[in-house]
């Protein structure tokens, strides 16, 4: 079955902000194709009467009361940040030069 194309891998790589070389695109296209093929085999055995599963546990309606729990302190929250300023997470320029 014709699976993932090189162009689709390039598109996904861009969405995931991954820089891939030409040979990597071919390599991953093959690998992703195998993975999707393997998953697709599930559909072959699943008949119309089998509902799709989104979760391995047969649970619904797991909810929490609307009660405040302690938050992290700003120091704790920021402790893993590569850069910070004014008690905020500092991130590089979002928009490139136009």
């Amino acid at each position: 079955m014709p699976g993932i194309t090189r162009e689709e891998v390039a598109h996904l790589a861009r969405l995931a902000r991954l820089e891939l070389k030409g040979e990597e695109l071919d390599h991953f296209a093959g690998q992703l194709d195998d993975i999707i093929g393997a998953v697709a085999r599930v559909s072959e055995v699943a008949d119309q009467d089998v509902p799709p599963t989104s979760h391995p546990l047969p649970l619904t309606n797991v909810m929490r009361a609307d009660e405040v729990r302690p938050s992290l302190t700003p120091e704790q929250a920021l402790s893993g940040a590569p850069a910070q300023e004014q008690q905020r997470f500092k991130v590089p320029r979002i928009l490139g030069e136009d």
Partner: protein
Amino acid sequence: MTVTELVSYEDALASYDPVMGLEVHVELGTKTKMFCGCSTELKQDANSQTCPTCLGLPGSLPVVNAIGVESAIKIGLALNCEIAEWCRFARKNYFYPDMPKNFQTSQYDEPIAFNGYLDVQLEDGEIFRVEIERAHMEEDTGKSLHVGGATGRIHGASHSLLDYNRAGIPLIEIVTKPIEGAGTRAPEVAKAYVAELRELIKALGVSEARMEQGQMRCDVNLSLRPHGRAEFGTRSETKNVNSLRSVERAARFEIQRHAAVLNSGGTIVQETRHFHEEDGSTTAGRIKDNAEDYRYFPEPDLVPVAPSREWVEELRRGLPELPRVRRNRLREEWGVSEHDMQSILNAGAIDPIVATIEAGADAASARKWWMGELARNANESGRDLASLPITPEQVARVTVLVKEGSLNDKLARQVIEGVLAGEGGPDDVVEKRGLKVVSDEGALGTAVDEAIAANAGIADKIRSGKVAAAGALVGAVMKATRGQADAARVRELILEKLGVTEG
């Protein structure tokens, strides 16, 4: 894109038929975030309300806020929607630092509420039905501060600073079906819809829906098509239109701009646009180089939400009277016109008037004070009626004092003024300022005698039957008592003393 000369609104609508779609985000008033127990209180120290879950740290797991789900169902029911028997959350994947998780937890093809409508009433009383496509649950994003550019804009910024206190606050996104057939009234319908939705949300008690605080935000999608054509034109999406007036202006501007582009043979670019409060215009946002691809998939960390029919029916039974129905009921009870009721609504005076009547005032007096003296004071001090330092009970007390004759209108105004100035309740102000109608018949009789003596000529005219001249003597008495007399009683006394009866 170059600036296009706008087509006049009338000309635009002579050639084209507008179609709108409105997306409204409502921030719920829950105590905690949608998926974690962090507080949602506004205006707190940056990053003081976060936890591993809303920061998207490894190993953390979200759990849904029950009140968030309940609020979504209430909104759905009030919008006459069907409520899903089973639905899931989905991850909307994107790279943008306003969400530390790199995805927003939202709902995709299984919204909790769908297929509803909201009837909105236009200024002239016409009812317009706006069909609702869906209402779904999601979460708000963090707040960005752009540094190094001009006026805090993202363009030209050297870097940005993120505060994640808002990230994860529950949002309900309400999406209309395409609104067709509004014609020239499209901008008015848009405004009326958002206004009605806001009233509804407030009545449900699920959010304060303050647009100026970003608790309710509107995106206006608009396209034009030539009259008689069934298919829609290309739409533009004007983001974050954050006041009722702006919703109307944005729709109006886009109608004129689209018409101008189409008239000149151009094509509308499907893009997001920014609304400018200063002049009511919109400008193109970032051009998207490729179609949005959020790669939605079911959120594996949350289990499905399957509201039982018993729960849904219980919530349905608990719905309050809908705002439009309530307004019409009050309008009839108060005996006011559609137009007056609209003014009362716009002034935010409905609830204060209702509370004042409940505290013992008659409808006409309650309305008179809130729409007169108090509205003027609120206007001058730039506050809304609800935040004036006077309670409905105090206003009701003033109306009672007027009714029983201890105050006349002029004195009542001074009492209100005193209460607003923080001098205490109405009775305190009356006491401290010595504002009581002179009802002591002896004192009043003396004042009347003096006025007659001082104006012998006028008194003679009245004796000879010119009752109309009594006004001048009433004026003299009122002046002598510094306005603290009951004018009607003064008139009676004057006529009595001069031996005349009212013709």
